[in-house]
């Protein structure tokens, strides 16, 4: 029995990885095809991929933050507010003492928000949504007030904006492949050359490689490193098992001696810290300035990415990447977004066929109808209104939830208040 379980698990995981990789290749093939047909070269340019990486990171960090909290059974709608705290404190400390101190203090600001959420939800047993909403309101108000206090007589700053962060975070470019410097020597930019050939698929692959390896900020590397770290911590350590057990069945966990309250406190504080890091990232990426409203719903998008990703690190990465990509395209060019419509039509048609083959007729037909509508939209117009692009992540999340909500599995005790001694 034990043997079977031990043998089956790795195969399953490998199978999942292979399937994910195949899906990625298919997506890139489709994008490459669309690029050739529509001449929307920004669809797969290295610039777009590089922007995707930059735009995805704050969403990813918020989503990872949400992952810690919700795996421990605490719903965190307050991610948005914690990110706001991260932006403000990060920019303020960065202005005084340089970017890395800014990172540290921003993380602490977010963690403070998380701690407040933990006090309200764990110690006082308040409804998680209620506390999160209150923290969002409080964070927006508090930062406004702090800006007035801190920046009133500072040149280049004001009640809605901080001064520049003092200095920048370094960047890295991979040598040989992406043209980075190696011991002061310039090396060839092989991937960049590949991209410029405009070959079907191969150039797109090169662009993807270049986008992810050229001029990557150290903070990005740190954030990306947090993905495997989170997976390892939550799924491969006793600490992670305890944390997740608290989110699945707190009574059972408590009866086995797991300190439920402590685990929840730790998880929610980490959650706030990660959201705060996401906030600092926003500040440092946007010329080192805090602006009011800078977070702009990214905490909520992070939450969407978390749900989209089925409360798992890999899924969270895909969700954040998807939302980041649509954001990045919007920043770069409208023609590409228009081209993306063709891609969506193809993807929806493929999904529809897949459902039809699996004889889930209603969903399949619905997907095919969506595909033809989107194609009709693509063929009948020349541009997509900006507003529609900005709502894309939300529409996608709703669609995914509408199709797959039953297949998603949140932690079993997610969002339920838990009182010590309930297990008697």
């Amino acid at each position, binding site marked *: 029995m034990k043997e079977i379980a031990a043998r089956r698990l790795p195969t399953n995981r490998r199978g999942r990885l292979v399937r994910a990789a195949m899906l990625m290749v298919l997506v890139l093939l489709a994008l490459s095809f669309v690029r050739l047909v529509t001449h929307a070269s920004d669809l797969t340019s290295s610039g777009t991929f590089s922007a995707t990486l930059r735009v995805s990171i704050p969403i990813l960090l918020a989503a990872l933050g949400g992952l810690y909290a919700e795996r421990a059974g605490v719903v965190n*709608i307050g991610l948005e507010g914690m990110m706001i705290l991260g932006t403000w404190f990060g920019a303020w400390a960065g202005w005084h003492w340089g970017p890395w101190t800014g990172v540290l203090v921003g993380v602490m600001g977010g963690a403070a928000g998380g701690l407040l959420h933990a006090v309200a939800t764990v110690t006082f047993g308040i409804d998680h949504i209620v506390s999160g909403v209150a923290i969002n309101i409080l964070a927006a108000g*508090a930062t406004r007030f702090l800006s007035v206090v801190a920046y009133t007589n500072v040149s280049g700053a004001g009640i809605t904006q901080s001064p520049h962060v003092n200095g920048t975070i370094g960047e890295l470019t991979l040598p040989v492949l992406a043209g980075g410097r190696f011991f002061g020597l310039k090396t060839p930019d092989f991937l960049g050359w590949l991209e410029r050939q405009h070959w079907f698929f191969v150039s797109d692959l090169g662009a993807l490689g270049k986008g992810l390896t050229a001029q990557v900020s150290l903070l990005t590397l740190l954030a990306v490193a947090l993905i495997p770290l989170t997976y390892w911590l939550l799924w491969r350590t006793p600490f992670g098992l305890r944390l997740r057990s608290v989110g699945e069945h707190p009574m059972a966990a408590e009866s086995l001696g797991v300190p439920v309250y402590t685990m929840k406190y730790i998880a929610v504080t980490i959650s706030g810290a990660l959201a705060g890091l996401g906030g600092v990232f926003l500040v440092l990426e946007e010329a080192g300035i805090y602006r009011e409203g800078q977070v702009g719903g990214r905490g909520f998008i992070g939450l969407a990415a978390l749900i989209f990703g089925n409360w798992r690190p890999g899924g969270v990465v895909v969700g954040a990447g998807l939302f980041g990509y649509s954001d990045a395209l919007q920043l770069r060019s409208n023609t590409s977004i228009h081209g993306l419509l063709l891609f969506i039509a193809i993807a929806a048609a493929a999904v529809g066929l897949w459902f039809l083959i699996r004889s889930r007729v209603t969903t399949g037909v619905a997907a095919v109808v969506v595909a033809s509508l989107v194609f009709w939209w693509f063929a009948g117009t020349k541009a997509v209104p900006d507003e529609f692009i900005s709502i894309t992540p939300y529409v996608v999340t709703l669609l995914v939830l509408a199709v797959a909500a039953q297949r998603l599995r949140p932690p079993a005790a997610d969002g339920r208040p838990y*009182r010590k001694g309930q297990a008697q």
Partner: protein
Amino acid sequence: MRLRRILIGLLAPVFAIVLALVVSSLAVLLIHQSPVAAFKDMAQFGIRTDSLIYTVNTAIPLFLSGLAVAIGFKMGLFNIGVEGQYTLAALLAAYVGARVALPAVLHVAFILLVAMIVGAVLAGAAGALKVTRGVHEVISTIMLNYIALGVTGYLLRTRLSQHNPPGDSVTKTKLLPASGVLPSLTRVLHSLGVHPPLGSDLYGFLPIAIAVGVAYYILVWRTGFGYDLRATGVNAAAAQVSGVNPGQMIMKTMLLSGAIAGLVGMPELLGVFHRYSIEFTTGLGFTGIAVALVGRNNPVGIAFAALLFGFLERSAQILDLEGIPKEIAVIMQGVIILSVVIAYEVVRRVVQAQEVRAAAEKSKGLGPTPREEDAA
């Protein structure tokens, strides 16, 4: 006993306001100003006639928004989407309202109806997603918020705006005709002996808002539907066993919540701007959540909470003249929300523990005593 319960019930809001005063005093001290002087200024400025009218005007949409959220809260449903619902509703109601010709009262009623339908459709979408697909309404209403705001922006920019004369760059819908406008209550105030200074008009929407509040009370506390609603909120499983259809309840409640949410923008539309433009107040939906929380989903409580928020916003404006940032009001609101919620929870548990103890006293010798920890 009854008096004691009322006193305990008042404990929570009083505690919250005291805590808010303490925290904001600390904030004022932080910038080397006197909190006492600041609060005195706020109080003096806040009770001027024009300030009071401003407070009531601010409170009306907050009250409606609070009711919209509260009806969901009553059965454990979160409609976070009031923001998007009222914005899109205001735009479409303004557009449709400017394109029809109707007699005065009917015209206003028609505009209100359009707004309520738009709000109900948006919230109903979230309800339908929950009932048919199992999508949690918090997520779907947040997503629908952004979608509704995006669609509002698009429609206003491209389809529904009027052709402006040259030099006017504010995008807006056509002006409502006179029949579609609510007169202010200034004349009523005059007959009551109150003479507000020029330029401060009490919204004509006030009686409608009060009527909505009364309707909310009757619906939730005096009808069978309201009983089912509250029963579901207290114990969904027990309500379902007793014959309440959860899917139907969710749909009805979301539709009602959305319909009330659609009204949130109406006081401004019918009373001030008479058209939809980008000058419309935003954020009323989110503040409405806070108002519902502070007001404990009770219509009178929500009214007080809305007035309190309006008063804070108005009276803080004087502070800027004294060199104290008026944002102190936002901090006070935030602290009040969080501490009120915590205080209510603590009070609820204390009361519950007392009841258990009282029951234990009574049942002494009648059998095994209930354990106190069960209620803790």
